[in-house]
């Protein structure tokens, strides 16, 4: 939105479901701000004008204390503040709590100085650009390879810090076809201001077309992220310990999302962060009943490769119709603590 009389933008485009909700809340707080400003400025100007030294105003019996008045201007702002807090907290939970929809489009984002690398589940990769379909929930799983970055799309009114060493998730549902700014919002070094890009929200048809046109990112055979993970799994010879007949590593089937008991007594859910640690620093999360003998892969895998491995392990959880063909027998084991 722009001012009518000048070429000055005053309102950002909104292109997600959250954008509308947030704009509403924002406008309410703007309203409160204007209301209080009018009261305070009005009082100040009125008193200055009326009680300017030498004026003939009635100054008899001034008061210095007024408990009801003090309480009023303590408690009314508090009540309004708590109202805003409640609304904002509710919206925050709605925006930030992770979506667990099967239908959501899972995209992996790795931030590094100074670019964004996106990886689509079907294998397409792109840098500093993100193509997504309109009207479908998009779930981003983000991690940084070096310093803290922050993934920010103003049109979606959403952002999250992208931290090294752990996964963050962010999701939104675009509602409007268009081209929107993508920024890095956390200072990350020399080219922080150039760590920007575009988010393209496409109609479902255009998105399908885009997926087809960009198969080059997947290699010759059309490798999905999980398939790339499987290739890596074989290349690193994970199966030499983790194959079921070896009986060395804990089984990978059904690993993702299960609850693990570690040798130090902790019970943890095998989520993305757990699996990442289990690959990079396996000895830190040895599973109870297994020897801590797996070598750590820290420094040997890029964050993208770790994501591919995790995606592969995740496919092993699905009881039926695993998307990856043969390495998929239900008794497949492996994995690391």
């Amino acid at each position, binding site marked *: 939105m722009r001012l009518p009389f000048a070429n000055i933008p005053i309102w950002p485009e909104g292109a997600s*479901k*959250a954008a509308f909700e947030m704009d509403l809340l924002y406008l309410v707080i703007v309203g409160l701000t204007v209301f209080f400003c009018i009261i305070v400025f009005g009082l100040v100007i009125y008193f200055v004008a009326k009680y300017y030294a030498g004026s003939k105003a009635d100054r008899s019996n001034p008061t210095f204390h007024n408990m009801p008045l003090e309480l009023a201007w303590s408690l009314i702002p508090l009540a309004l503040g708590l109202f805003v807090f409640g609304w904002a907290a509710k919206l925050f939970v*709605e*925006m930030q709590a992770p*979506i667990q929809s099967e239908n959501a489009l899972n995209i992996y984002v790795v931030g590094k100085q100074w670019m964004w690398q996106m990886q689509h589940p079907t294998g397409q990769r792109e840098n500093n650009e993100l193509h997504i379909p309109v009207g*479908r929930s998009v779930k981003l799983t983000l991690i940084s390879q070096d310093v803290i970055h922050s993934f920010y799309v103003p049109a979606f009114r959403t952002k999250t810090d992208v931290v090294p060493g752990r996964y963050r*998730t962010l999701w939104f549902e675009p509602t409007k076809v268009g081209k929107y700014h993508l920024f890095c919002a956390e200072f990350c070094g020399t080219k922080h201001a150039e760590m920007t890009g575009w988010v393209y929200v496409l109609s479902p048809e255009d998105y399908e077309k885009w997926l087809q046109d960009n198969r080059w990112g997947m290699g010759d055979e059309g490798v999905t992220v999980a398939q790339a993970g499987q290739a890596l799994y074989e290349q690193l010879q994970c199966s030499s310990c983790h194959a079921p007949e070896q009986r060395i590593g804990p089984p990978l089937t059904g690993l993702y999302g299960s609850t693990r008991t570690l040798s130090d007594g*902790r019970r943890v*859910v095998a*989520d993305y962060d757990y699996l990442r640690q289990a690959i990079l620093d396996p000895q830190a999360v040895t599973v109870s009943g297994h020897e801590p003998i797996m070598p750590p892969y820290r420094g040997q895998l890029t964050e993208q490769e770790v994501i591919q491995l995790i995606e592969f392990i995740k496919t092993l959880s699905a009881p039926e119709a695993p998307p990856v063909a043969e390495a998929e027998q239900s008794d497949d084991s492996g994995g690391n603590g």
Partner: protein
Amino acid sequence: MSFEPAKPKVYLLTFAALLVLTVITVLAAKLTLPKIPMGIMILDLNIVLAMAIACVKASLVVLYFMHFKDMGQVSKVWAVAGVFFLLVMFFMTLGDYENRHPEETVGWTESGPLHDARP
């Protein structure tokens, strides 16, 4: 606040108590107490016991060696305030680590408020 120093006997008794408690601490460490998992952290009862003993020792030092009774009102209030804000820092920060993974506790399934379930 001019203070009256305690008798040497008080100091010697405090000293003896501190030595005894040191021995108890060492012995207590030989016990294997349960470890309670909390979120991504583990609460180790051994350390809880050790810290409890350390707190007793610290109180003895403050009460007798640092003659707490002669300490002015101001100092008392500020000492308490210091410990209070230290605990605020500890517990609020730990509250973060305790609840770091929202995935495990909440989550929108098929239809969240901002998300329509679609076929």
